[in-house]
């Protein structure tokens, strides 16, 4: 298993709207992960940070910022920007460093303080930036989630009750997670009663933006053995593939899809292609997966991901949900952490938070949200500009 690295430590700062500097959250998560791994900060030879670009300080949410906060000790540093997949790319950089033999143990970290209100682009007249154009036209993030949700209702007969059931399920799981932002167990009636934001999605179908931080200590399998952690969960695959031409689903922040008019070209789905490389790399298939953490930017999107990951046939995810199979205790629990529904999104930390949850579950340390006998888990997320990732963790 030459491409595997061990996850020997995990740490998180609770998600919320704390209004503090992101470095403070990152420090807390890093210190927790170091304690969990029982590794000293000075032994870390590589710091890999997830980045985000906004708030007037592009380039500042970076690996080096956390390395300085922990105290400069001469480790090598990396910063990865990949929108919602930033954390996975930072993890991939650390994994490659370890596999190449250039380093034995690394800190992977992401932290964010989100601005109040909508996430929006910088101003001016900038028609070359698709993100600017779509906001100028009044097309926000929920617009895209709603377009996908409406298609599910039309093509597969999914209902508003199904979407509400996802919020109820994830809120229940999240209420048992010490790191989640929202602890309330919402009822289907409360979801149904929340205001429509982008038809058919209501306020409680859509995830919030949050402050938060997540950190991993990853090492070579040899190193893990040496420090008595030979049974630590391992990262067995990472996919950070781009879409494949012609991308046929209108994706944030684009105003149009690729054209499939050329001979021999067909429309392809980015989300469906993403996990394929991960499954191939791990040498496993969807049937081997025990749990998944997927990017539920909206309730309905969780159903899309279940099918994109091959955990249900196209159009069948809602039927799994209705039977309770995607809840903790079901056949294939989805978002046992509570998902974005319970966390809200902290972009550079979120993909790492997903890996933290898999690690905690596979170690059997998830307390009241524990999934029994979980051996293999997968994460999936997607963000702006053709970024996305899937990570497979196994024990």
């Amino acid at each position, binding site marked *: 298993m030459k491409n595997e690295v061990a996850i020997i430590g995990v740490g998180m700062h609770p998600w919320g709207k704390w209004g503090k500097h992101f470095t403070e959250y990152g420090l807390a998560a890093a210190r927790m992960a170091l304690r969990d791994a029982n590794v000293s900060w000075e032994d870390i030879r590589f710091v890999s940070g997830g980045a985000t670009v906004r708030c007037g300080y592009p380039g500042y949410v970076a690996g080096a910022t956390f390395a300085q906060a922990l105290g400069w000790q001469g480790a090598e540093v990396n910063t990865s920007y990949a929108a919602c997949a930033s954390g996975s790319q930072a993890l991939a950089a650390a994994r490659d460093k370890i596999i190449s033999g250039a380093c034995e143990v690394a800190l992977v970290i992401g932290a964010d303080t989100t601005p109040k209100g909508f996430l929006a682009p910088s101003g001016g007249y900038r028609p070359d930036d698709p993100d*600017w154009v779509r906001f*100028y036209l*009044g097309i926000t993030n929920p617009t895209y989630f709603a377009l996908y949700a409406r298609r599910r209702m039309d093509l597969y007969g999914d209902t508003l009750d199904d979407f509400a059931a996802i919020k109820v399920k994830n809120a229940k799981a999240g209420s048992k997670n010490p790191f989640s932002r929202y602890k309330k167990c919402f009822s289907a009636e409360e979801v149904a009663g929340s205001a429509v*934001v*982008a038809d058919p999605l209501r306020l409680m179908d859509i995830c919030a933006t949050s402050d938060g931080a997540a950190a991993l200590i990853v090492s070579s399998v040899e190193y893990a053995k040496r420090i008595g952690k030979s049974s630590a969960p391992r990262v067995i695959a990472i996919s950070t593939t781009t879409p494949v031409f012609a991308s046929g689903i*209108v994706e944030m922040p684009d*105003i*149009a899809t690729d054209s499939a008019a*050329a*001979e021999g070209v067909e429309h392809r789905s980015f989300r469906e292609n993403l996990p394929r490389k991960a499954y191939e790399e791990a040498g496993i298939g969807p049937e081997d997966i025990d749990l998944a953490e997927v990017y539920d930017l909206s309730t309905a999107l969780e159903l899309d991901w279940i099918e994109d990951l091959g955990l249900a046939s196209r159009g069948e995810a809602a039927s799994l949900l209705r039977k309770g199979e995607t809840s903790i205790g079901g056949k294939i629990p989805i978002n046992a952490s509570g998902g974005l529904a319970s966390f809200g999104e902290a972009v550079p930390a979120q993909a790492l938070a997903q890996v933290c949850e898999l690690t905690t579950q596979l170690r059997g340390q998830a307390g009241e949200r524990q999934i029994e006998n979980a051996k293999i888990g997968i994460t999936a997320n997607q963000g702006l500009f053709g970024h996305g990732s899937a990570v497979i963790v196994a024990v």
Partner: protein
Amino acid sequence: MLRKAQTPAIDGWYKIGKKPQLIGSQCKKCQTYFFPKNDRECRNPRCSSTEFSETSLSREGRIWSYTNACYQPPAPYIVDNSFIPFAIAAVELEVEKLIVLGQVATGTDVDSLAIGMQVELVIEPLHETEDEVKMIWKWRPKDL
């Protein structure tokens, strides 16, 4: 009172007037369409042509999906007076084999839309400046 001049909200993306059209480009080698216009290099990975012709896209298409904006979007979205919710459609153009987003024509709400519905391109105001009305493309159901 003088009427304000109508000008495109985004330069070079569409023609306004009686027969409005979205302006795209088409690769001369592999026939791939682009909207907005691409004149750098063909983005079909099996083609690397740099020869494009400017082309007007189909004025009609079918709704791929639809939604609305119930709350005022953040800047750079501009509201003249008070915010009025509007519908949004993703429309599939058959010839070009691509989907284009746009607002739905004023006065049509989500309840009168359906996936597969035939729509046509119209030009309507997006917002006003001191001396101009900024115009944008919108989709209008054909049978309403």
